[in-house]
């Protein structure tokens, strides 16, 4: 029998190579299939309610009475709550996160960074239900005290027992901290030391260097961290469901509210008919927000890559 050389189409191993390559390709395109399937399902399930209830009534209506005799499905307050909650948690979390990142990369001695760095990593690994549980037991009672103090004697305020927007914002701000810190820290580390040295040599103090040279130089990376934080805050469900109360309301600090995510968590299990379809629309709105965040991220990354 003539011996077939390896790599030649007649060789036995050649088919194994081809099969391996094909299988690996299937693994690689799995992600594309997943994203397409998710997008298709979110639209296919989320759009019908828009036609049924009416686009303006659904998206801009403020009354949520899904189980009333004359049901009303206005999700404007829910969308608004998600936007407000995310905005304020980012406003609160980003400065703290950025300063911690500066501490890690610019200020601290190695030994102190060796404590802070693992602590931040561990914060990221804690399951969100634990944040929710501790928020329920620590934050909510404290908020309730504050609420009673501020609204003492008020007859119009509906007391929430501390489950309100403020509690949710604080929990969200804490939950986005690890993301903001680790992304900002790695972009600060990527700033060349020559820039710091040049600034110091020109007579700038350490802090002037940090705030006028290093941080501006790491701007696009820090911005990426902020956008990632926005994505996390928008998508967080369980923790804030436990601390934000359960009624659809205008997102004022001491009101109990529903977010896009918590609306799904709390009503999906029993909703039927149009109510269920509207919840899918809520999911679609959330998905569109997330897609927008992803697009911004992509733009930022491209910009960052161009710079290098």
């Amino acid at each position, binding site marked *: 029998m003539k011996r077939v050389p390896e790599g030649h189409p007649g060789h036995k191993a050649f088919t194994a*190579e081809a099969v391996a390559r094909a299988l690996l390709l299937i693994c690689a395109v799995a992600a594309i299939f997943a994203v397409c399937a998710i997008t298709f399902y979110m639209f296919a399930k989320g759009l019908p309610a828009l036609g049924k209830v009416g686009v303006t009534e659904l998206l801009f209506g403020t009354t949520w009475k899904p189980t009333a005799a004359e049901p009303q499905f206005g999700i404007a307050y829910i969308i608004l709550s998600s936007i407000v909650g995310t905005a304020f948690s980012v406003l609160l979390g980003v400065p703290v996160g950025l300063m911690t990142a500066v*501490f890690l990369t610019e200020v601290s001695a190695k030994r102190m960074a060796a404590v802070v760095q693992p602590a931040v990593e561990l914060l990221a690994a804690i399951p969100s239900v634990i*944040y929710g*549980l501790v928020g329920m037991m620590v934050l909510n009672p404290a908020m309730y005290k504050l609420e009673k103090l501020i609204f003492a004697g008020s007859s119009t305020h509906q007391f929430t027992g501390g489950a309100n927007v403020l509690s949710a914002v604080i929990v969200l701000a804490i939950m986005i901290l690890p993301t903001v810190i680790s992304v900002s820290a790695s972009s600060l580390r990527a700033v060349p030391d020559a820039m710091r040295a040049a600034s110091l040599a020109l007579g700038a103090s350490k802090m002037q260097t940090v705030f006028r040279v290093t941080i501006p130089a790491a701007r696009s990376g820090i911005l990426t961290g902020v956008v990632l934080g926005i994505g996390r805050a928008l998508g967080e469900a369980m923790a804030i469901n436990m601390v934000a109360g359960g009624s659809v309301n205008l997102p004022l600090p001491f009101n109990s509210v529903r977010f896009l995510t918590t609306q799904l968590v709390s009503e999906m299990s029993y909703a039927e008919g149009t109510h269920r379809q509207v919840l*899918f629309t809520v999911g679609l709105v*959330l998905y569109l927000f997330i897609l927008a965040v992803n697009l911004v991220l992509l733009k930022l990354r491209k910009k960052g890559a161009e710079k290098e």
Partner: protein
Amino acid sequence: MNDSLTAKRARPADALAYGAIYLCAFFSVALLAVLLGYVLVRGIGVINWQFLTTVTSVLKGTVGIAGNLLNTLLIVLLTMLIATPLGVGAAVYLNEYARPGKLVSAIEFATETLSGIPSIIFGLFGSMFFGETLGLGYSLLTGSLTLILMVLPLLTRNTQEALKTVPDSYRTGALGLGAGKWHMIRTVLLPSATPGILTGAILAIGRIVGESAALLFTAGSAKALPKTFAKLLEKIFHSGGTLTIQLYLSATADGDFTTAFGIAVVLLVLVLCINLTAKKLASKLDPTRRK
């Protein structure tokens, strides 16, 4: 000006900035300490042999989480069994076979998008697609299939990083000796990249253990223990609540905070162990990188 050149000017703004930076760093650490301390103090008393090895019984008035522990374990096993080959395969294709082009950027964009999708959306999709369309209902399998999508980007990215650290000389060496490409990948590349791949896998396990929103509408909340081995295998097609789901239900629907804190302690210990293992592996990986 009577100051000497070497005298330091007092800068109040600098002092303020230092203060803010130290305060923020301290806050981040204190936050973790308070969180861990609070959960431990409230929950450690709940942990005992009965709590860990039995199932809650209304008849006997006892509380146990064995069923939830088993469900968590099954979901981790099932998810990783499918997700690891898928993620590693994707990374190998992207790093070793693919040439830069439309397909690669599409795959990379999809992976990126997937990693940005919140778990509640995965849960919604999983319950619609795997649960309703494929008819798997509330089951551990539905939950696992959903979580595969969630951890896929994590596995792919970590494997890619690991493959990048394998020196090109290994590849050319093996190919030069006459190995086929797949043979080279199987016998040279993957073994050298194992620590990195394992780190990714362990991080993925950590995410699965802590996941809740994606499982609420897919895996359900049952907590019974199967009596026989056959029942254990069958369990994959039945509903089962993980530790996180039970914690959520205990704290909200049942108002049983003692149990909730007990589960929280168990979860924290698990997450801590997983994190430490991943760290150990990663540090093992580092020195070889510098070589």
